């Protein structure tokens, strides 16, 4: 990876110009995914340059703007955990941030990175889906439910830079992550749920973080038990190193039952 060119833009304008004019370039924020893959040579295709967006002022901070909570794409999870606005307006996002790695990762991980990496196990991604977040880029605003297009694939153009994430105010979202243990675990099932509007968003149960359409339809009818039953047909879990499909299906139903306070299984 020593031959990967390192580019450090000074501000957003400079970053956008460099990103558009540099072929085979990837943005680098806190490096919690990209640095691992660069060092191991597992990032395909291998980038020839990285664009360091970590210190760009416009990509930092948590603020209220235009009736939304706006989080800079390169703000750290620690920054969200410490933000009064985030606690007040997006407590489920703060809850998710607290479950991501430990201090070392929370100090470096970012929403821009979680989105661009687009892992089905990304812990903030179901939360953003349940909040109906909007991904703001250098050229447009992408509704989160149109962002994930396939396994680790996104709606971003090759030279499109994530600038911020906006979350509508006044939503109530519940969050739960199930991993092997409380700290430093990658999710086996990660879920965020809103009653109104009805949103059931789940990670680690399909090739993308997904909205559970059948469960949401039941929830919209105020049929919590129906949602718990239907969610099993919404997900597409697989057996992998972390868990089995059968376990994920059972836990998905149990977690949804818990988050909806639905009656226990008869």
């Amino acid at each position: 990876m020593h031959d990967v060119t390192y580019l450090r833009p000074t501000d957003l304008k400079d970053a956008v110009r460099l990103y558009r004019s540099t072929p085979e370039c990837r943005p680098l924020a806190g490096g919690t995914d990209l640095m691992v893959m660069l060092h191991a040579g597992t990032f395909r295709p291998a980038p020839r340059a990285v664009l360091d967006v970590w210190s760009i002022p416009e990509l930092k901070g948590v603020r209220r703007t235009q009736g939304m909570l706006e989080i800079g794409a390169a703000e750290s999870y620690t920054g969200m955990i410490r933000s009064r606005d985030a606690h007040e307006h997006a407590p489920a996002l703060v809850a998710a941030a607290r479950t991501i790695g430990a201090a070392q990762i929370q100090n470096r991980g970012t929403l821009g990175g979680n989105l661009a990496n687009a892992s089905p196990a990304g812990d903030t991604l179901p939360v953003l889906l349940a909040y109906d977040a909007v991904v703001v880029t250098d050229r447009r605003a992408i509704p989160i439910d149109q962002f994930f297009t396939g396994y680790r694939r996104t709606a971003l153009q090759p030279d499109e830079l994530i600038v911020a994430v906006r979350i509508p105010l006044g939503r109530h979202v519940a969050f739960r992550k199930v991993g092997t243990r409380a700290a430093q675990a990658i999710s086996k099932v990660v879920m965020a749920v809103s009653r109104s509007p009805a949103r059931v968003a789940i990670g680690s149960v399909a090739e993308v973080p997904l909205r559970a359409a059948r469960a949401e339809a039941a929830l919209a009818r105020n049929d919590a038990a129906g949602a718990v039953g239907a969610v099993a047909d919404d997900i597409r879990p697989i057996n992998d190193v972390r868990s089995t499909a059968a376990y994920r299906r059972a836990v998905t139903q149990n977690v949804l039952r818990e988050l909806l306070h639905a009656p226990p299984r008869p």
Partner: protein
Amino acid sequence: MTVRFTLNGVPVSIESSGSRRLLDVLREDLGKTGTKEGCGEGECGACSVLIDGEVVDSCLVAVGQVEGRNVLTVEGLAAPNGELSRLQQAFIEHGAAQCGICTPGMLLAAHVLLQRATQPTGDQVREALAGNLCRCTGYTKIIEAVLSCTT
């Protein structure tokens, strides 16, 4: 490129590709081998250093990203005359090091906690050290050592 930063209170300037890992530059270019490589994937915390007072895994940091910043490695915890910090001394007295590979990272993560909380609880110590794995599983003595430094 030239990267300038402050390492353990001393200004340093190095010539390096900006995309190299801070971990490698510390160990190979600057001789600071107190920072250990464990997993190289941001899981184990053996390579923990502080950047501007925040604990990070130096295997995940591109060296270009520390331009103008303050980096503290385990070598910077003792006084310039070599006198160990209270925390380092406590690790010795409590037998908190076995093989020693996690010790520098444990010390730095615990150092951050003790800077912020003078009376941390056992749970707070465990949370602060959650990103530092001890392959000898010597956690009990490590936690006791940190708790002995509360005022």
